[in-house]
């Protein structure tokens, strides 16, 4: 497997997702002779995983079973070790579309953080594009590089451990798109402009606070960016279940009483509590002039 190419069978060194049900899952690195403990019992990698097709049902030692899934950037986002706040798929989706990413795109990103967005970008720009990602925290930069290697996507990504506000992205006039998720994005707009291709490109800045957005928009205008738009996207998820409303006893039928339907039905109910905010997304185009 690699994060940018499906394969049929599980093999040594793969990162597989063990799915326990009801959204509960975790990643494992497949290794001859290794074992993984789950609540349903042990998974023996050599016997249960290697050589099996992805999507298989694996019966664990206690008789319970799990599914083994091919990794995708979206599953990784749900399972990765959090080294920072991460971006989730709802924001990632709109970022990818609004930055017009596709195979062949050259993208600059800062910070790398936990690599949630990085994996999604690499997936989209491969096999002909590239991601230049900048992370100022050394430990995090190293960990991200390791993960990219493990996920077999390292040829499409260059990790740099530097401060983007001071030192920029380390590349000049090559990028189709720049993404910023840093505390002071307005300090990096100049570097972003420099990283973008001469003939233009797209920029996105993610900020949780409106004051950051205000300063970033001002900096974007000062640097001649156009089509500056800010938006917010929220996921609204529905639980599908059977609802049961009792019919009230009004003391016997009244004539004419309308015929009442069955008070049991399938419904999609919104979750009681949901994510109310992740961040504001500001998009802009590099102007030609």
């Amino acid at each position, binding site marked *: 497997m690699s994060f940018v*190419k499906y394969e049929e069978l599980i093999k040594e060194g793969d990162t597989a997702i063990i799915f326990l049900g009801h959204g509960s899952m975790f990643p494992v690195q497949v290794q001859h002779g290794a074992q993984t403990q789950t609540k*349903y019992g042990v998974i023996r990698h050599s016997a249960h995983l290697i050589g099996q097709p992805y*999507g298989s049902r694996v019966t664990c030692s*206690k008789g*319970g079973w799990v599914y083994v899934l091919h990794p995708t950037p979206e599953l990784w986002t749900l399972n990765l070790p959090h080294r920072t706040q991460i971006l989730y798929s709802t924001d990632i989706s709109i970022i*990818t*579309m609004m930055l017009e990413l596709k195979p062949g795109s050259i993208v600059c990103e800062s910070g790398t953080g936990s690599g949630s967005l990085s994996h999604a970008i690499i997936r989209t720009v491969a096999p*002909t594009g590239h991601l230049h990602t900048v992370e100022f925290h050394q430990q995090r930069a190293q960990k991200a590089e390791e993960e990219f290697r493990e996920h077999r996507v390292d040829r499409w990504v260059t990790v740099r451990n530097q401060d983007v506000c001071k030192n920029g992205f380390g590349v000049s006039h090559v990028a189709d798109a720049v993404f910023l998720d840093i505390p002071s994005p307005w300090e990096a707009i100049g570097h972003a402009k420099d990283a973008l291709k001469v003939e233009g490109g797209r920029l996105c800045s993610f900020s949780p606070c409106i004051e950051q957005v205000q300063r970033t928009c001002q900096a974007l205008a000062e640097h001649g960016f156009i089509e500056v738009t800010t938006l917010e996207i929220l*996921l*609204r998820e529905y639980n599908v279940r059977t609802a049961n409303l009792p019919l009230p006893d009004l003391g016997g039928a009244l004539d004419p009483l309308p015929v009442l339907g069955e008070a049991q039905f399938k419904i999609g109910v919104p979750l009681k509590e949901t994510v109310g905010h992740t961040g504001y997304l500001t998009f802009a185009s590099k102007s030609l002039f």
Partner: protein
Amino acid sequence: MEGTKGEGQPGGGTMANNAEQPRQQDHLVRDGDFVVLKREDVFKAVQVQRRKKVTFEKQWFFLDNVIGHSYGTTFEVSSGGNLQPKKMMEEITSETKEAGIDNRNIVDDGKSQKLTQDDIKALKDKGIKGEEIVQQLIENSTTFRDKTEFAQDKYIKKKKKKYEAVITVVKPSTRILSIMYYAREPGKINYMRYDTLAQMLTLGNIHAGNKMIVMETCAGLVLGAVMERMGGFGSIIQMYPGGGPVRAATTCFGFPKSFFNSLYEFPLGKVNSLLNGTFSSKALPSESKDSISVEENNGVLLDDLQTSPKEMEENIIEVIENNHPQQETMEVISQEPEYKDQKERGNKKDYIQEFQKKQEQQKKRQIEAAALLNERNADGLIIASRYHPTPLALSLLEFVASSRPFVIYCHYKEPLVECYTKLRERGGVINLRLSETWLRNYQVLPDRSHPKLMMSGGGGYLLSGITVANDKQKPESCTVELEKNEEPIAKKQKVEESEDLP
């Protein structure tokens, strides 16, 4: 697995051999390019052709002058419908923009503008540019300086829209075309909002090298978005109802020819025969149902044709109707940008010959598509149609490999609730999620930042999930009760000694 999928596919690209290297001059507009015109927040897709009159936002002009300019260049419409490149707009001078604090002194008597309609017409006739007219309107407004800064900006924007005809030429993309369709012809894309499409592409893990099944009745917009994300690598089988797939929006992307080599189409009406092994390529829909095929096929396109005579009710795309007053079925099969040649050849006999040739080709392609589907190892399924999603999902999922994502769009929530329930009963799917997204745009201006006053009330609903091995369909499967839980709760057996992975 890549190897398996490549077998017997003449056009099925692999990672290596199909890469389209970006051309050096790719950022310049060329004759024949598919471009999008932009004015404020309004888009229109059009093919660049010399001496072709284009109507956009009640203005007409020629696109000849955009050829050779960079994408992103802004033009102003000058006399005779010629476009003149334009530098960035100068800001209204700060002197003029001295603002009032509030509106307590403003009494609206309809007499605040000293310029009359005749004055304005005279300015226009003198060839004064829109920008200058707006400046003059401001200077002749008695209340402008008393208006709050917010009201001033509103005034300027309104007047600019009226008197300035500024058009930017941009490169088509999923971003632009999906925003364009949602804003102007949402009915043609089943009211799918652009962020919903964005979710589909991500949830579906669409990327280079995939073998995708796409069933859409969104004018070909979803197909185009999938093609853009795959960049010509991998293969796509488009399922279609009626006589042929609709790809009006796909054309607007202006994809290179090579992208269409690995794009197949397969009629929905043969899905069951394929599933039960009785498929035959003999009766192609275009042969058997010729009379209805044109309408079925090109419902969207004919629609465009019917409205095009009314000059004021312009269409958002001016690509197909301008080239093909009489749309032919075959055009739909592979819509490479080769209209011009046909136009030159343009007589009926050639058309008939070509029609037969294309039909042969179509038959061949359908057999190839059937073979691709029969491998039952697609990397994903995207459904976004006006049909009830449940029967589509239940049958098309049969062609998908396990451990692959699928995404189903519907304008309404209720059918997806049903679809969710039926898929649970079917088994072989996990991580089912029914969702929609909420999207709001912001105005960010110094001291005047707030969400936009209007927003979309709904952009449609998505049901997504992941395929897995479906033991339920095998005779040796467990009991239904067990399957319903998605995974068993088995804690009876003794715990074996084990060693956690680091």
